[in-house]
C-alpha cells in the first residue's frame, strides 16, 4: 500500500505541469498570431501619443510621416528634429520646426524627401500600367496629440507642395463623445 502511494505522487506532479502547458501554449499561439497582423506599426512612446477619435476607416499603406515631440520621421528614416521655442502669442514653451529648417511655411528637408518619394511613386505607377498603382498623393500622418497646429500646418503645407494632397490622419479608435 505504501509503495503504491509513493510511486503515484511523481506522476501526479508531471500531469499538473502538462495541463498548464496546454493553456500556455494556446495563449502563446494566439498572441503570436495577433502580433503579426499589424501592417501599420505605431511605435507609441512618450513622444508619440496618437489622439483618440471616433473615426472608423482603416488606414491603407501610403507614405508614413511620423511627427513626434522630438523629430519628424518619414517611412522610418529620420528627417529633422523639432525644437522648443517660446511662443510669441502665449509666452509659453511650445514645439516648433527650427527656423533654419524652413523657408516660410515650407520645411525644406521634408519637402525634398517627400518630393523624391512622389517622383518614385509616379514613376512606378507609370510603369505598372494598372490603375491600382497610380500615384494618388496619399500620405499618412501620425502626429502627437499635443503638437501645436502651427507645426501641423507647416507639415501639411510642405506635403501639399510635394504633391501629397490626400491626407490621412492616423488616430486610435475609441474616442468621440
Amino acid at each position, binding site marked *: 500500500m505504501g509503495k503504491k502511494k509513493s510511486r503515484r505522487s511523481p506522476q501526479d506532479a508531471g500531469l499538473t505541469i502538462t495541463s498548464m502547458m496546454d493553456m500556455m501554449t494556446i495563449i502563446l499561439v494566439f498572441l503570436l498570431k495577433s502580433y503579426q497582423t499589424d501592417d501599420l506599426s505605431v511605435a507609441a512612446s512618450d513622444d508619440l501619443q496618437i489622439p483618440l477619435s471616433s473615426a472608423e476607416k482603416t488606414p491603407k499603406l501610403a507614405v508614413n510621416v511620423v511627427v513626434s515631440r522630438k523629430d519628424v520621421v518619414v517611412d522610418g528614416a529620420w528627417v529633422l528634429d523639432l525644437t522648443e521655442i517660446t511662443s510669441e502669442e502665449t509666452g509659453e514653451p511650445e514645439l516648433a520646426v527650427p527656423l533654419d529648417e524652413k523657408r516660410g511655411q515650407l520645411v525644406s528637408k521634408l519637402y525634398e524627401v517627400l518630393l523624391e518619394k512622389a517622383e518614385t511613386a509616379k514613376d512606378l505607377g507609370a510603369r505598372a500600367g494598372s490603375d491600382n498603382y497610380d500615384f494618388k498623393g496619399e500620405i499618412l500622418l501620425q502626429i502627437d496629440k499635443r503638437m501645436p*497646429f502651427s507645426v501641423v500646418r507647416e507639415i501639411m503645407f510642405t506635403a501639399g507642395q510635394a504633391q501629397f494632397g490626400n491626407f490621412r490622419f492616423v*488616430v486610435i479608435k475609441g474616442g468621440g463623445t
Partner: protein
Amino acid sequence: MAGKGKRGTQADELDLVPIMNLVTILIPFLLMASSFVSLAAIDSTLPAIGQPPPPEEQDDEEPLNLSVAITDEGFTVMGGDATLKPEGEEKGATIPCTKPNCPTPEAYDIKELTRLLVQIKDSWEDEQNVILVPESQVPYEVLVRTMDATREDPDTVDGAGNRELFPFVVIAGGAQ
C-alpha cells in the same frame, strides 16, 4: 542496467521545465508588445491641391461655406448664410470653452458644437463640406476632436448608424 529499466516511456520522463521557461518569458513579452489598439484614419484634402468633393446642391442656391474656427477661447461657427449669425455677433456663433482660456483639450465644448451643427444640418440637409480654421497654438488633439464633432452626431441614429453631419473636412491655413 537492470535498475534503469525502460527509458522509452516518455510520459514519465519528459521534462517540461525548459519549455515552460520559454513560454513564461514569451507570453509577458508578447502581451506587452501587442497593444490592443485598432487604428483608424481620417481623410482630409488640401483646399488648393487635390480634389475637394463636389458640392451636391444646385448652382442657383447660395453655398453654405460652413467653417469652424478653433481659437484659444473656443469655437466660432461661420457660414455664408446670414441665419447663422445670431443677433449682435459679427462673425458667427461662438461656443466658448467650459473653462476660460481653454487650458486642456477636454475644455473645448464639442457637445455644444455638435448640437449647433445638427441645427445647421437640419436646414442644409445636402451640405457635406466643412472648413476647419484652427489657430496656431491649438493642439492637434483638439483638431481631431473637432473633426469627430463635425463628422457625425452620436446622439441621433438613422439607418446607417450615427447621423452624418459634415464628413468632408478641409483644413485651412489658420486664423490669425
